[in-house]
């Protein structure tokens, strides 16, 4: 009869070495007495003989199983593992026979240890033992696991809390992590941990996240068994929460609906301003546009550029957005594209002073490149935000025809900004049925690489503006 003592710290490695030796020497399970440190030596025990060395092949899944089961608190765990290992010698397929009663037992023990490890990860509660302002903060916890789970679970805490010192003290083995080094000791007394202000906040959180209308005490207890409660700071409030829950739920049901607070009308008015059409007193539109912060463009642009022209104009011309000069001057269509537009408009005998001219987007969107501002096309979101103002302008001026110059204006007015070249010169309609003539933007002319193409494009624009004058 052989007596083997497996120490508390490093049990997995030592059991493995011993078992390997016994197996190599062909010693049967009934010839070995496995003991923990605390167990007394057997009366008939003899010193183990020098082990034979040899290669032992064991299914990999057994090694993983043994590495977990050795941490179980059952004193027979080492013997059970060795007995099963002994059987595996001749029947390695046993590892996949889930109906085998020895394996089922071991798997069950494995499950217990896994669960205990998981609960340890969940229920250890640290308190700060150092000072909050320390460069490397230090924390400590008292925990009472069911199985010997401190050693196999310590790596989890190392991975998670590597930038602080911590210690998890248990009645059995304690883990200490200091300056990035992990060590284990036994026989630590229960520490007297200082009060921790964050713990009160945590209890406040626990009390308030609970919904008294759905009491499911059993569901809670099956996952957070009572044996853990004494070391969980929040668990002290559980009896009180359960006792008051029915009353609180009844009060909710019985209390009559209250009147909405005064604030509500104001808030909803604000909200309405965001979703519906602009509704303001006469003459306030310009002021409101100038103060617009509906999209981020207002942050970088100088100012919102308002529309210009008589409020009863029969023709409304909509461009894309203000450019560099427009942004600085606060007037639409005064830059190079604006001047080009004026030329073509004059050629089409279109009187700019009797036309209302505005832009689909009121703020200049650009990218700063060195000392220059490079124009950027507004995106769909910005167009959609600014459409609100455009709609308000259309509503105020009530033109007979709107000329949409370029893709952005077409997008804002007709909901479609694609293929302008094939759509130009035709009358389309807004969502509310107003006629819209789609045409090119004067800036398109400026972008043409040679005079030939520029004059062709200019003819197209001229042609379209003539269509517009004839329409009126």
């Amino acid at each position, binding site marked *: 009869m052989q007596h083997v003592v497996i120490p508390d710290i490093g049990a997995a490695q030592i059991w493995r070495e011993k078992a390997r030796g016994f197996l190599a020497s062909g010693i049967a399970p009934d010839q070995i007495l496995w003991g923990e440190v605390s167990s007394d030596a057997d009366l008939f025990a003899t010193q183990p003989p020098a082990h034979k060395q040899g290669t032992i092949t064991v299914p990999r899944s057994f090694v993983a199983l043994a590495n977990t089961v050795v941490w179980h608190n059952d004193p027979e765990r080492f013997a059970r593992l060795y007995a099963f290992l002994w059987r595996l010698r001749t029947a390695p397929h046993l590892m996949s026979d889930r109906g085998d009663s020895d394996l089922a037992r071991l798997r069950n023990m494995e499950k217990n240890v896994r669960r205990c490890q998981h609960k340890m990860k969940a229920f250890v509660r640290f308190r700060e033992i150092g000072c909050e302002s320390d460069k490397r903060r230090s924390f400590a916890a008292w925990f009472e696991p069911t199985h010997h789970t401190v050693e196999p679970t310590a790596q989890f805490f190392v991975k998670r809390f590597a930038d602080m010192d911590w210690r998890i003290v248990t009645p059995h083995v304690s883990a200490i992590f200091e300056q990035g080094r992990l060590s284990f000791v036994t026989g630590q007394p229960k520490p007297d941990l200082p009060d921790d202000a964050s713990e009160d906040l945590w209890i406040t959180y626990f009390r308030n996240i*609970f919904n008294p*209308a759905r009491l499911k005490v059993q569901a809670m207890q099956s996952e957070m068994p009572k044996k853990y409660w004494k070391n969980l700071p929040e668990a002290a409030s559980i009896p009180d929460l359960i006792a008051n829950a029915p009353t609180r739920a009844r009060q909710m049901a019985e209390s009559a609906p209250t009147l909405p607070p005064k604030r509500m009308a104001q808030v909803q008015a604000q909200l309405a301003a965001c979703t519906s059409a602009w509704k303001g007193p006469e003459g306030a539109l310009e002021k409101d546009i100038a103060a617009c912060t509906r999209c981020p463009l207002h942050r970088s642009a100088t100012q919102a550029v308002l529309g210009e022209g008589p409020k009863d104009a029969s023709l409304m011309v909509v461009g894309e957005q203000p450019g560099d000069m427009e942004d600085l001057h606060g007037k639409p269509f005064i830059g190079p594209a604006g001047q080009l537009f004026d030329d073509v408009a004059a050629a089409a005998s279109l009187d700019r002073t009797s036309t209302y001219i505005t832009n689909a987007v009121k703020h200049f969107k650009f990218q700063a490149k060195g000392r220059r501002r490079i124009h950027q096309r507004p995106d769909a979101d910005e167009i959609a935000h600014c459409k609100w103002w455009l709609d308000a302008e259309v509503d105020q001026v009530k033109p007979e025809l709107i000329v949409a110059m370029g893709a952005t204006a077409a997008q804002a007015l007709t909901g479609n900004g694609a293929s302008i070249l094939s759509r130009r010169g035709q009358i389309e309609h807004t969502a509310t049925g107003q006629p819209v003539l789609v045409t090119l933007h004067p800036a398109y002319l400026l972008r043409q690489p040679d005079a030939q193409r520029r004059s062709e494009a200019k003819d197209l624009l001229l042609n379209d503006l003539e269509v517009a004058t004839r329409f009126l």
Partner: protein
Amino acid sequence: MTQKTLDQKLAILSDAAKYDASCASSGSTKRDSRDGKGLGSNDGSGICHAYAPDGRCISLLKILMTNFCIYDCSYCINRVSSNVKRARFSVDEVVKLTIEFYRRNYIEGLFLSSGVIRSPDDTMSDMVQIARKLRHEENFRGYIHLKTIPDAAPELIEQAGLLADRLSINVELPTDAAVQHYAPEKKPEQIRKAMADVRLRKDAGKDRSFSGKRLPRFAPAGQSTQMIIGADGSNDAAILGQSTRLYSSYKLKRVYYSAFSPIPDSSAKLPLIRPPLEREHRLYQADWLLRFYEFELDEITSVTADGNLDLEVDPKLAWALAHRAVFPLDVNLASREMLLRVPGFGVKTVTRILSTRRHRALRYDDLIRMGASMKKARAFITAGGWTPGALTDSANLRARFVPPPKQLSLF
């Protein structure tokens, strides 16, 4: 008005957050802080650090940034017409709470949601700022779940997805009509568009760039959503139909079902009822059957005439009781698909049956050791040493599983 303390704010803003069911912290990228330069880890599976007496797990610090809200959704405690106390956290307060709770091992991370203040973009950009501060200034490697605001600007959603593990947008109610009725300011089409957007960004993140480099992962733990059950008249077929559409269209990780629960200061529009907890439970079971047990939607919902799940027995048992012709199955011969349909057999049990079957014939006792719930399963299977005899077709089989009748309360 005096300034509220952190404790008072936490009380108000966690109370306001409890109606969100999700508290998952699983399924994200594996990472840790062994290098000593950061705080936190994630190993793919979630940890529930505590349980409240309502049976829900507490894994994340689930709070609202503010419970001021300009919307008026009848089912919500934070709607503009409610008289609950209001509070607002500053960015630093949320960051500090998260870090201090995390260091004490109370939580896995942060679940941040918010009422809509001023405009959707302002709200969303504050939330993104919190996440950014946690990730970049505190080097926090724990879990972050952000509730996105549907009509926030796409750039903000993109930043949120790069910082957070999970994004979610609640569809709130099973049908568009119900959303329009109870949450007039919310737009179902906009919510769907936002979910589609998250999916596309996530898909795009999987591609390698031209130089073979991986793009930064977008919301690695995916997106989820929540539906309130029992507030409107939708039946379970409609609810499950909606969730199968959501799962397939937007590749959601989870659809959460939340039994409509009484709230303090409720709206006159929605009468208070006891939360239909049993129905919520059955919907989750059906959801699992659809996702992991290869059941089709109409197989589950066609068992009863009104399209609602049977509240007395679980959906798999209800299906088996209605299709007794295919039972009893021989566990030593039946296919995996059929074994998955046996009440009392889970996915794990079935895998164990299949692996052991390769070596020897299974007996009744083996099944007990494999974790099968034989009280349910025995009427539907044959195994070595066991045959159910007339039990499978007996008229009172259903009565064996149904809870005993209760006397009606007189009050």
